[in-house]
């Protein structure tokens, strides 16, 4: 028989060092597993280094792609993060992107607001659209007890369908009846920064990260959110306006995804297409999770995941690996990080048999 047996007990105190250790332990294990996986797919170590580090960061074209992609990823990562701060699971960033993108497009198509402030109006409209899309789900949870995992998820479809309805109807391009909106005029486009496709949206994303960091760490709302996340009943008992804080955080979260929609249509596509809101849900959750819901961590995680996509494109083209490779890597990382969270919540110790069993 074993002389020792494992004992799992909940931790009462989590040190900062332990938190970092489990996070990097999870990411590290994930990376090792992914490396092994890619090696079995016929890639060499030097290929991996050149694709994942050399190309994604060391090469201007690759870095351009990474940074451009990171803009919208940062915004959706922040969106999930803010909602997570009040234990509100936002699985609906795509719906909120659609809402933001449609609102911004409506401003362009219907010439809403003064022409000189077109971009600013689009910016606000996109926040409003995304905020509403998520706010509705928060209100449904607070007042109707509807589970937000379900409602935010379903609102993705509502957003995508509404966009389709418009693109095949009122907003269809009159020039060739193709289901895309008219191209935006120059006044409705975010400026390019002179480095490939990187556009001014990057300042919006970084500004949003700084704002979210301030909101979560230094503001009153942030402290109240902390209390709500720990125990909503206790928070209410001590006078925290739980409903209002949850609603506010969810609306702000939705607004950030709405801004992602704005940055895609005004900074990258210059029109509304059927594809602008696709493939954001999974990365948004991975990013928020890898960042442990820390807004500054989101910036790093979003750039990391963007780099993964950049490398993935290259792997597809030159190593003929399937597109699912990137998803596999993302899933492996997420899985490892969440497994390591076990050690954050619980203490695993080995106790000698006998001593505790026979008092």
């Amino acid at each position, binding site marked *: 028989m074993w002389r020792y047996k494992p004992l799992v007990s909940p931790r009462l105190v989590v040190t900062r060092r332990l938190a970092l250790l489990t996070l990097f332990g999870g990411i590290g294990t994930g990376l090792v597993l992914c490396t092994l996986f890619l090696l079995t797919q016929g890639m060499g170590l030097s290929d991996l280094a050149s694709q994942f580090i050399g190309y994604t960061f060391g090469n201007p074209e690759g870095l351009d792609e990474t940074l*451009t992609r990171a803009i919208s990823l940062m915004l959706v990562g922040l969106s999930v993060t803010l909602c997570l701060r009040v234990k509100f699971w936002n699985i609906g960033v795509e719906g909120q992107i659609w809402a933001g993108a449609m609102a911004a497009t409506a401003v362009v198509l219907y010439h809403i607001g003064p022409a000189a402030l077109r971009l600013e109006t689009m910016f606000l409209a996109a926040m409003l659209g995304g905020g509403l899309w998520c706010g509705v789900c928060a209100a449904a949870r607070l007042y109707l007890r509807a589970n937000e995992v379900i409602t935010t998820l379903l609102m993705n479809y509502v957003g995508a369908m509404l966009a389709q309805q418009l693109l095949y109807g009122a907003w269809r391009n009159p*020039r060739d009846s193709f289901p895309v909106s008219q191209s935006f005029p120059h006044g409705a486009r975010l400026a390019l920064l002179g480095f490939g496709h990187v556009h001014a949206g990057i300042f919006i994303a970084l500004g949003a990260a700084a704002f979210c960091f301030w909101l979560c760490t230094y503001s009153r709302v942030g402290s109240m959110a902390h209390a709500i996340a720990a125990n909503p009943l206790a928070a209410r008992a001590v006078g925290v306006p739980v409903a209002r804080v949850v609603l506010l955080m969810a609306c702000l979260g939705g607004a950030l995804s709405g801004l992602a929609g704005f940055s895609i249509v005004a900074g990258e596509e210059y029109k509304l297409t059927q594809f602008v809101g696709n493939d954001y849900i999974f990365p948004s959750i991975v990013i928020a999770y890898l960042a442990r819901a820390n807004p500054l961590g989101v910036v790093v995680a979003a750039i990391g995941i963007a780099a993964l996509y950049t490398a993935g494109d290259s792997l597809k083209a030159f190593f003929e690996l399937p597109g699912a490779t990137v998803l596999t890597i993302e899933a492996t990382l997420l899985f490892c990080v969440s497994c390591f969270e076990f050690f954050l919540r619980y203490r695993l110790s080995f106790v000698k048999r006998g001593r505790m069993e026979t008092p």
Partner: protein
Amino acid sequence: MKLKNLAACASFLAICATGVAHAQVKLSGKPKIAFIFFGTTNDGGWADAQNAARLSLMKAYDQRIPFVENVPEVTEKVEQAIDLFINHGDNIIIAGSYGYSDAFTAEAKAHPNSAFINIAGISSAPNLESFYAKTYQGWYLAGMAAGYATKTKTLGMIEAFPIPNVLWDVNSFALGAEAANPGTVVKVAYINAWSDPVKEAQISAAMIGQGADVIATDMDTDAALLVAEKAGKYSVGYQVNMAKSVPNGILTSVIFHWGKKLVPMVKEMASGTWKSSGTPLYGMKSGVVVDAPFEHIPAADISKIEAVKAKMIAGTFSPWMGPIVDQSGKVEAATGTRISQDDLWNMDYLVANVKGSMK
């Protein structure tokens, strides 16, 4: 008028701006080709036909030709894919999607020493050609075959989008059917996607329910034909020879041999004599579009079709010779006149024996 003319003006202006001496594209080095596909290379249709061209180019020029699949019609994604290849040293980028047009224009401008080909695109530049096939020639003959085969005088045709280069397929199919069997009608429905097998199958079943006994697909997959085969109806395939999927009911397939044009084009590019022809249409004469062998109709009918085909190749017959009347009764081409290629690019009507709308 407007669409095609715009493209023509743009390319004319661009040629003027760069000076006639630069009209021929000087590649940055030895020709290195790369492909971008809208679907997957084994989609049994659009991308499959283009991949066949990739394979023949590989053989002809003895080089490995990298590719990416599943690139959506999102400007940012297309540009990233192009950058990836250019950065890798590739200087001939070949793709095939209407919705890539904007991205190709931007990239052609950014990389003047690379050549760009976008099959079925609508944009052009000194180093960008968007050629397409005179698909209507193939569809007219297929329409004749369907006209000879039908007992119910009702044909069904599944379409992607109501855009000019799709509408001319329906119209020529209907004109061919009318010529072979007066009084035949063509029911048309749009999927509003280039490929959506589930919807294609549903619409095919619905058309059979409404009495259609020949189903023609203008889509990227054979889904609609499989339904027809099961119901014991005739089929007309598209893009590749679909006889393998539906051996019992296939009449013919309108198929592409893109390699016929691409192989000599790359040769010109290598010698520095290639220049963009804008947005030309290549027909049966060049072999880019042909009909697969006609089956399941009497030999006498096949020889009538072959006779029309011979006149088409000789240039003495065109499906667009008047009289052509649209659904509303408006005369689009009077007897003795012919619809011009520019007007084809602006086709926005269905001919009289088509049942269905523009939406």
